[in-house]
């Protein structure tokens, strides 16, 4: 191990110019943000989902939570475009985890008819209209490994997308706002190494190229901008800052974009990209945090981490979802 900081300044410099071209210009008035996250702050045994409103600059306030169960873990939230609906993974002790939906306006759970097969489903990603839910599933009997499925709330049908899954593990789906694009991580043969990211076009039912994204190590946890152009993901790379880092890929430029000041020696995980591509929420475990893993908020327009007062707790705060409020 090299004990000096291993930041790849050369790579950062090379990508810096490109980032300026693709980074959103600082807005005169920062948009308001809604974050959802999973936290152990109230119960070390069972994480719960909390909401947090941020002014896009440096102030924010907690905004309630999903009503918890007594022996239920709630995690991996995903928000609809208007912030009304929040889908999560729910797991009651002794049972397999399921996808659940919470209506923030009515403050009550909503049914997801015919979604559950009584087998393990987790990690939902919701389209902006709240109609589609992509998720990972370990359905047995069924196809080998982890698979990605899509639930349509309108038709109440569970779709096994043609041409998406493989005989290996396909998981961690991320939907674009319009539901057309679906990014996921897969260990299928023929990749660049380890798990790779793939992008599935639900209109053509084919995989779209991601030239220059995947490397020799695994890429995981994709998150899409609203139009599916940008893909944030986590990877361990030799040129990284340490352990897992967050990267951002631009499909149009077919290159990685710089994220100066985002990564650290600590593992960075679970990137959540705002629909406009400006904000990145992610998880990191840093000494200057509030305790263990925290959720951080990064503004690409200023290349700075934003203060998030009251967002994190002394315990693990993880699995962020982010929404730019209209």
């Amino acid at each position, binding site marked *: 191990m090299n004990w000096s900081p291993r930041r790849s300044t050369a790579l950062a410099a090379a990508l810096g110019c490109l980032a300026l071209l693709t980074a959103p210009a600082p807005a005169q008035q920062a948009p308001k943000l809604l974050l959802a996250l999973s936290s152990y702050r109230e119960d*070390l045994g069972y994480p719960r989902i909390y909401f947090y409103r941020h002014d896009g600059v440096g102030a924010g306030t907690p905004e309630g939570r999903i009503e918890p169960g007594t022996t239920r873990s709630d995690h991996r939230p995903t928000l609809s475009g208007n912030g009304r609906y929040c889908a999560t993974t729910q797991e009651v002790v002794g049972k397999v985890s399921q996808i659940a939906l919470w209506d923030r306006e009515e403050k009550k759970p909503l049914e997801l008819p015919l979604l559950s097969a009584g087998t393990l489903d987790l990690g939902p990603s919701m389209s902006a209209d709240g109609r589609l839910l992509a998720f990972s599933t370990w359905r047995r009997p069924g196809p080998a490994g982890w698979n990605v499925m899509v639930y349509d709330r309108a038709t109440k049908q569970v779709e096994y997308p043609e041409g998406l899954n493989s005989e290996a593990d396909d998981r961690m789906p991320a939907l674009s706002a319009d539901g057309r694009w679906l990014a996921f991580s897969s260990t299928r043969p023929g990749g660049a190494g380890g798990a790779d990211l793939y992008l599935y076009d639900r209109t053509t039912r084919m995989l779209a190229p991601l030239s220059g994204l995947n490397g020799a*190590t*695994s890429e995981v946890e994709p998150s899409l901008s609203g139009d599916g152009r940008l893909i944030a993901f986590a990877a361990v790379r030799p040129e990284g800052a340490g352990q897992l880092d967050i990267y951002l890929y631009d499909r149009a430029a077919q290159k990685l974009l710089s994220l100066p000041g985002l990564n650290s020696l600590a593992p960075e995980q679970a990137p959540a990209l705002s629909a406009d591509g400006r904000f990145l929420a992610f998880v990191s*475990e840093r*000494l200057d945090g509030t305790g263990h893993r925290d959720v951080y908020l990064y503004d690409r327009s200023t290349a700075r981490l934003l203060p998030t007062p009251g967002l994190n707790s002394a315990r693990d705060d993880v699995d962020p979802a982010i929404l730019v409020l209209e």
Partner: protein
Amino acid sequence: MLELGRGEIRTCQGLSRRRLLTVGGLGVMGLTLADALRVEAASGAGSGRQKSCIFVWLDGGPSQYETFDPKPEAPVEVRGPYGAIETNVSGIRISELLPTLARQMDKFTVVRTFTHGLDRHSPLHVMTAKSDNPTAFGAVATALGERSGSFPPYVRLGSTIKGVGGGALGAAYNPVTVEDPYAGKAVIPDYERPAGVAEGRFDRRRSLLEQVDQFRRGADADASLSSQDASYRKAMGLLTSSEVRSAFDLSREAPELRARYGANKFGQSCLMARRLVEAGSRFVEIKWFGDVDSSAYDSWDVHGADLPGLSRLEHQLCPRLDMAFAALLRDLHDRGLLESTLVVALGEFGRTAKINAMGGRDHWPAAQSVFLAGAGTPAGTVIGSTDAEGAYPSSRPVPLNDFIVTFFRILGFNANVDDRLRAFIPSGELVDELVSTA
């Protein structure tokens, strides 16, 4: 047991029972820390330096597949979603969830065939030697070994491990425990007199030690110790000395080094362990940083029933282990401590080959990977191999008893000739590959 850092005193199993044992000529009767010091003084111990140990207990039973024995060629239901990566030792691959440690493979060895038949979560069978005489390895090693200076010889970082302590040796050999070494919270706050706190108030805190010792003597109270006893004063001085407080004070480390260990209890425990060994502790036990009442939160017991699938390994457990161990090995190496310090990590058992309906793995004692480094153990090697699905040893099985005997040999105790050990550890064969250079 003295517990520091939370301001409370707990008792351990059997503390109130009076025991009279003869161990290699050493009579121990319901001892306190002060007793231990008195015994030490009487025996003339205190010179020389044996090998130290950092014993890491991975509570819950770590998966060999997602740590040190990946099976990337196995069927998808066995290999899981994580791949194997090359290490800095040609031909050895470990899980991709340990990328930083993979670059330190030349400093450690893995026993891939640690095997036994005990499908229980109790750590007693792995952390103490005999179930009918449960005495922690740390207690045995520190009781029978040479003491190095006036420093707590046996320290536990992390929460209580039920039944793992001084055991038959007596309460004097229970570890000094710091439950939460993270973020400067472990400067022995309840025994250090803060600025502005009156001496009298501090004296009342001292009385906690008197109370716990009195409790330990229990109904069989032995009036031989008093507050005027010199050894008692030494014990108190030991726990409140500036040297000891300093060793427990992580704020004295550079922030970047602290960050490399990981900003979590386990990472900071590893850093504190290095500081303690450096200062003179013989045996530092790290319990994977669990909370007694919420083992589901951070346990390696990943059935998939607590959080789905293996995601806890991916997001929480392995990144923390990866960073902490890589930093620890490098740090010990750079300070010249690795040659004299054994680092060992294991749990109750390994995990099942086939991923269950919950997306996790269940208990599997037939094969577990054990991490060892330092103290003359070989580096950059793997001992034993498992079958294609990682379920059973296919070469060089290492049974529990053989491992224990070998573990003590590495620390400098020869069970074949040292009668004092027989009361505490079973008989077994040496694992020659581990001790040939020790």
